């Protein structure tokens, strides 16, 4: 059998650019200085839900406000996680584990709060189009949105056009996130958009998934194309900031 010196024919850029820092070290640099907050963010980063809860408990016992803790500790921890994921230092499963810890933390804060606490940055509806069963991308989108503090209503896969429209009418979300992986199913996007228009509903419609192209999405007015699941929370933030469709496209259409 032949063998080869691979350095002559390829470069493993992942190895080449791997930071000398470990993920833990990189996170360490980002934790807030306040020790109590620091412990919570660290527990989020490590995805240790038990530790999150017990740290939260101590902090509350020390008089810190649940809402304050959500914003300054839990969300902060999750931001570190998202940032390190974006920078390629940690991987998706880490994000998912952290997200669960954070969600548990938020639940706990809500429970412990005196006033009713409805914490979320906004409501998002997420679905896979009719006729399409490829749903793992949608699942990732959903998780990342939740990890970033959004309330996601996940309609599942193979969702009929009318069900999507109904849900939008009922929930009036911040935006709609649709996934399609097949050329034969993505025309549902157009139908949904037309029906929404007909109802006079003007909600940003973010579309993605394997077969969906920017060109296809660009053809309808409400559409914003996103390439990666990790784009969705960024798009969400821009929507929150009030960017309109043209601006959103300017920012997120890469091709």
């Amino acid at each position, binding site marked *: *059998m*032949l*063998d*080869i*010196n*691979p350095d002559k*024919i*390829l470069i*493993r*850029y*992942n*190895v080449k*650019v*791997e930071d000398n820092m*470990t993920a833990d070290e990189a996170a360490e640099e980002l934790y807030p200085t306040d020790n109590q907050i620091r412990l919570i963010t660290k527990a989020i980063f490590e995805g240790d839900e038990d530790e999150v809860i017990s740290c939260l408990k101590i902090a509350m016992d020390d008089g810190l406000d649940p809402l304050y803790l959500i914003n300054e500790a839990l969300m902060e921890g999750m931001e570190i996680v998202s940032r390190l*994921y974006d920078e*390629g230092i*940690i*991987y*998706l*499963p880490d994000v*998912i*584990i952290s997200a669960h810890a954070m969600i548990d933390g938020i639940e706990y804060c809500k429970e412990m709060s005196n006033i009713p606490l409805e914490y979320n940055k906004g409501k998002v509806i997420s679905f896979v189009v009719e*006729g399409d*069963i490829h*749903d*793992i991308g949608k*699942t*990732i989108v959903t*998780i990342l949105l939740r990890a970033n503090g959004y309330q996601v209503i996940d309609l*599942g*896969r*193979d*969702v009929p056009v009318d069900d999507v429209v109904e849900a939008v009418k009922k929930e009036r979300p911040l935006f709609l996130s649709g996934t399609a992986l*097949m*050329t*034969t*199913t*993505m*025309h549902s996007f157009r139908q949904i958009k037309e029906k929404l228009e007909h109802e006079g509903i003007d909600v940003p419609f973010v579309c993605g998934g394997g*077969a969906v192209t920017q060109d*296809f999405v660009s053809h309808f007015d409400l559409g914003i194309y996103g390439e990666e699941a990790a784009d969705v929370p960024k798009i969400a933030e821009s929507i929150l900031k009030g960017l309109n469709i043209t601006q959103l496209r300017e920012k997120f259409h890469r091709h």
Partner: protein
Amino acid sequence: MTKTKFTRMAYNSADDMVFGRCKKPIKTGFDLEIGSGSTIPEINYAPRPEASKSPEKLISEYDRITNDILNRMIQLGVPSVVLETEHVQDMTINAKLGSEIAHIQKTILEEFYDEYGIKCGLRHTIADIRERKNHLDLKDGRFSLLMECFDSVASKGADLLSIESIGGKEVFDYSILKNDFRGILYSIGCLGAIDVENLWLEITKIAKKYKSVPAGDTACSQANTAMFLAGGLLDKNLAHTSAAVIRGASASRSLVANEAGAIGPGKDCGYENVILKAVTGMPVSQCGKSSSCAHSDIMGNLMMQCCDMWSNESVEYHGEFGGMSVQCWGEVLAYDCSMLNAAIETGNDKILRDILMVSDRYRDPQGFILSYDNAYEIGKEITNYTDDTYMRTKKAALKCCNLLIEGSRNKLNLSRFECTNLEKLRLELKALTDDSDEFQNECLDEYTKKVRGFIPGNYF
């Protein structure tokens, strides 16, 4: 009960495996011989978005696609070709539609065969429509619908029958995002294996009835999902070492189709096929470099190493400067095959195989695992545990870990992250019980609780 048991490897040594030739070649279609001394392009396509607006449009789309492909093959002097039509849901649910398309395609193939003598055949890959909005429905109504469709496309002349079955998908989707290898093995080695057997015992009967070929399955819903999550070198959704181990393990699941009567060529997207070829000696279809229209992998050349058919997986039908997309990609495949065939005819097949293999062997853990020598070793693990699909899956997975660890001491340059992941993975796998019943019982419990939509009745 499954019919065939593969208790020993079809080849005495890994080095006996080459492209274009296998131990159990098959004949089908119009004069087609698969695996008996030459490689054959297998061209795949997806209709344009507009085409699914009506059944008439869809039918005419496949008509055009088929003509375009065959015309180009004639223009280039290509001796043989296979067309693969992957059903979209409508075509399977509405079996009349699917079979009408099969009929039209087969008629066109026949015309070209009559006029030019081009050897050709048609594969139909039925859509696995047993997935509902929130759960799988593997055994009941949808199962019969599937079989109805197989029956009708076979009756209308589809030469090769395939499916990308989804048994185990619910547990897999849950586990993969958590890197939970216990769930992953359960999905592949237990649930998947059970479903594949159920399916292929039936498909084989239908194939027999119409003298079509029960060609095979793929662990697409597990191993390819993992491969896609793993992505390119810089992607961060899944460690490539995990994807490599899942690939190796998935051979155990795909093999069940052959045990139940499938005789190859397995589906192109089954990158595990090289392991199957080593075990069964049956012909395989593969994709890689020339399916970059459909997806990007990091073992594009390597996948040619032992292929009998060479496929582009799928391309949307649309225009390019060089003709319609199916013609352009079909042309790439045809030249690739011509190169392979020229190597065979000049007695240089093994050298070319090795060139192709080493060009990707160290590019990524996935390619390393699928290098034919390593694939062969994984196959051996599987044949050692013929009767226990759990154990053979676990052993295959462990073998992958060990191969990777060994490789990383040599020229396989893993990232620190991949090394850590690999070690964790190996320990996790090692810690699992060897007792299949125990494992299954525990998992049944655990995942029924954890995975919404996991319905044991689909399997047991």
